[in-house]
């Protein structure tokens, strides 16, 4: 496979996953803002969404006042926001178009169709008048892309690069999602455990589309400890850092087998995997959830760069 193609596949799936996770973040902000306003009103919740999306600075420069309408427009349609949902689909399609031969017609139609629909004027109204419906639409596009990939793509190295992109991005997003809690609650850590806090924690689960899954695993014990465990260490949760790490390691191993060679990127992936498989929630909370998540984000980013170096995304 051409190195350029591998790079396109990797970034195609990263951008689709990013668009979907951006929608999940917005869902969380929306639900948090429905809570009875305390102090600063619901602005704090929306600001935390911006922070988790890594868009706080860019937004401040352009808009200043964080209202729901301004923020959701910035996160969905703003061309100047590199991570806006519209830009994610634009970049995803540009990557797909640059290597049409490496994806199936079904996958192309999923990506191309999503962008065509999103470019229509009606979508702006939908996002404005019925944000939850719009968020569902975005999630459906992500599901359609993964579904067509799953049902139509050859299980060769291209498939591995696509899946690597998906799980690198998902791990990044789950970590950021959890981190939002810190932007919302700090420095008011004293209220941990009261009603508002519980609601916010369950909203994190909702944003990860994991509320019902959580019920099945832990019944109704919404302690932050369990929720964090579910999204970090639980091996059965499809969005947990552990699960993502396991998939990344697995796809890198598949590449090593197909290409007949192991590289530093393989041991780096295994290191992170071991860290998570032996992880302990008490320890993580003691050293600080925020510190743990920051460290994970750096590792994850390093892994992404290392994949690119190993398989020559920059050219030989």
């Amino acid at each position, binding site marked *: *496979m*051409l*190195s*350029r*193609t*591998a790079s396109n596949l990797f970034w195609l799936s990263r951008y689709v996953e990013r668009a979907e996770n951006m929608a999940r973040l917005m869902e969380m902000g929306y639900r948090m803002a429905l809570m009875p306003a305390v102090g600063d009103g619901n602005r704090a919740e929306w600001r935390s969404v911006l922070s988790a999306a890594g868009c706080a600075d860019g937004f401040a420069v352009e808009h200043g006042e964080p209202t729901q309408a301004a923020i959701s427009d910035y996160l969905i349609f703003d061309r100047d926001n590199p991570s806006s949902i519209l830009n994610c689909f634009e970049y995803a399609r*540009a990557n797909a*178009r*640059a*290597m*049409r*031969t490496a994806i199936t*017609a079904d996958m*192309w*139609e999923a990506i*191309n*169709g999503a962008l*065509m629909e999103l470019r229509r004027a009606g979508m702006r109204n939908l996002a404005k008048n019925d944000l939850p419906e719009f968020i569902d639409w975005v999630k459906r596009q992500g599901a359609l892309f993964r579904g067509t990939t799953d049902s139509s793509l050859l299980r060769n*190295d291209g498939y591995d*690069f696509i899946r690597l992109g998906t799980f690198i991005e998902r791990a990044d997003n789950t970590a950021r999602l959890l981190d939002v809690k810190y932007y919302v609650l700090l420095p008011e850590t004293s209220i941990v455990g009261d009603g508002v806090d519980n609601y916010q924690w369950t909203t994190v689960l909702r944003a990860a589309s994991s509320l019902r899954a959580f019920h099945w695993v832990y019944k109704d014990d919404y302690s932050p400890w369990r929720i964090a465990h579910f999204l970090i260490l639980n091996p059965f949760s499809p969005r947990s850092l552990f699960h993502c790490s396991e998939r990344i390691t697995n796809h890198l191993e598949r*590449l090593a087998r197909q*290409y007949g060679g192991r590289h530093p990127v393989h041991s780096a992936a295994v290191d992170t995997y071991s860290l998570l498989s032996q992880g302990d929630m008490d320890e993580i909370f003691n050293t600080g959830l925020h510190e743990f998540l920051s460290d994970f984000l750096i590792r994850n980013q390093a892994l992404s760069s290392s994949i690119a170096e190993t*398989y*020559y995304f920059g*050219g*030989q």
Partner: protein
Amino acid sequence: MFNEMMMNDQVREPYRALVDWMDATGAETLTQKRLEAETLFRKIGITFAVYGEGGDPERLIPFDLIPRIFTAAEWRKLERGVKQRARVLNAFLYDVYHNAEIIKAGIIPADLVYCNAAFEPAMIGIDPPRKVYSHIVGVDIVRVGADDFYVLEDNCRTPSGVSYMLENREIMMRMFPELFSKLRIEPVDSYPDMLLRTLKSIAPVKCNSDPNIVVLTPGAMNSAYYEHSFLADQMGVELVEGPDLFVAGGLVYMRTTRGPERVDVIYRRLDDSYIDPLCFRPDSVLGVPGLMNVYRSGGVAICSAPGAGVADDKAIYTYVPDMIRFYLGQEPILNNVPTWKCGRPDDLKYVLNNLGDLVVKEVHGSGGYGMLVGPASTAEERAAYAERIKADPGDFIAQPTLALSACPTFVESGIAPRHVDFRPFCLVGDDIRLTAGGLTRVALREGSLVVNSSQGGGVKDTWIMAE
């Protein structure tokens, strides 16, 4: 004017079943189908960018639902004529890059060949595999009467449009399956296989295994990018850009996730001047430095060969009938359009005196740009054009305004005749192969004779009826 569908108020035989079916279907359903077709095209992503204009960079070529139909007998003649031309154009190319017998014999003036911008001195003495230079020949044909066909021009470099031939058929079969089950229409879907066989058959001498073939594209911004990716996909070969390839040890390789992989045959959709910055344009970032050296030493095959364009130049075109007699000892099966060469004083005089009745073209132009359609022009336009001709007569040729045949077409006001042309795609390698079909282009504006997609032309499916 010849109407493809009607003759003496009677529906012509090949169109009868179609007309019955259209009558039974009704205008409303057909309009609905038309919208469906556009959605399908957009969804599949078949687009065509038009150079130098604003607006949607991925514009759709308008697709017309009503097919253009040839009988088996009509096709037999076209097929023989097209193959004859493809053969002779390659014979000509081999000759001008070797002994130039046709020039020595005084049939074609030396300056027309050697002073031609498309003539490539770097190709002199090179023997391309199977002596083939132009592996895909697109022949543009117009019809003026029941049995009168003319060749408007030849395309020997990298003719585009074959993806439309294939996709138009896909869309038609998806929308009107009952028509295809009822009528006996020659299939076109073997084209990609035939193209692959042709490309494999021209593997270079240093290739010692199953040849590795790639399609070389200038990139996603190119107007025909959809076609490049479509053909690569249909053949199951890599679609590469210049930076994906490099030269080492006298061979060409592509950069892959496994490391370098050797490339044997390059079907390039890139102009000559861009393919190798060391040999041609030094500022090209689209090509592969050192490619021509590898080509010369038999390490790689390039399709079409650099310099193949000298055979499809509009000035050379006028000599194709002479070439057929010279190289093949045959009479041309398809005629040229009578052409005045402004480089000749008598012809120049005639052209300047009759501008209002003629179509004048730049010898090196393409895509319908920079031409004068006499009957549709104003006096000022003609006067301005006359000045251009006088400044450099050798750069212009003129042809009579042909009454191009018209085919019924969906337009704003309903169904009306619009002028059409036809481009079949002939493959030359170990054999000469021609798919029973081609691209029919239609001038959508009333009275317009310009069918180019860059100037408001559309496309139709073309049906060759089986015997």
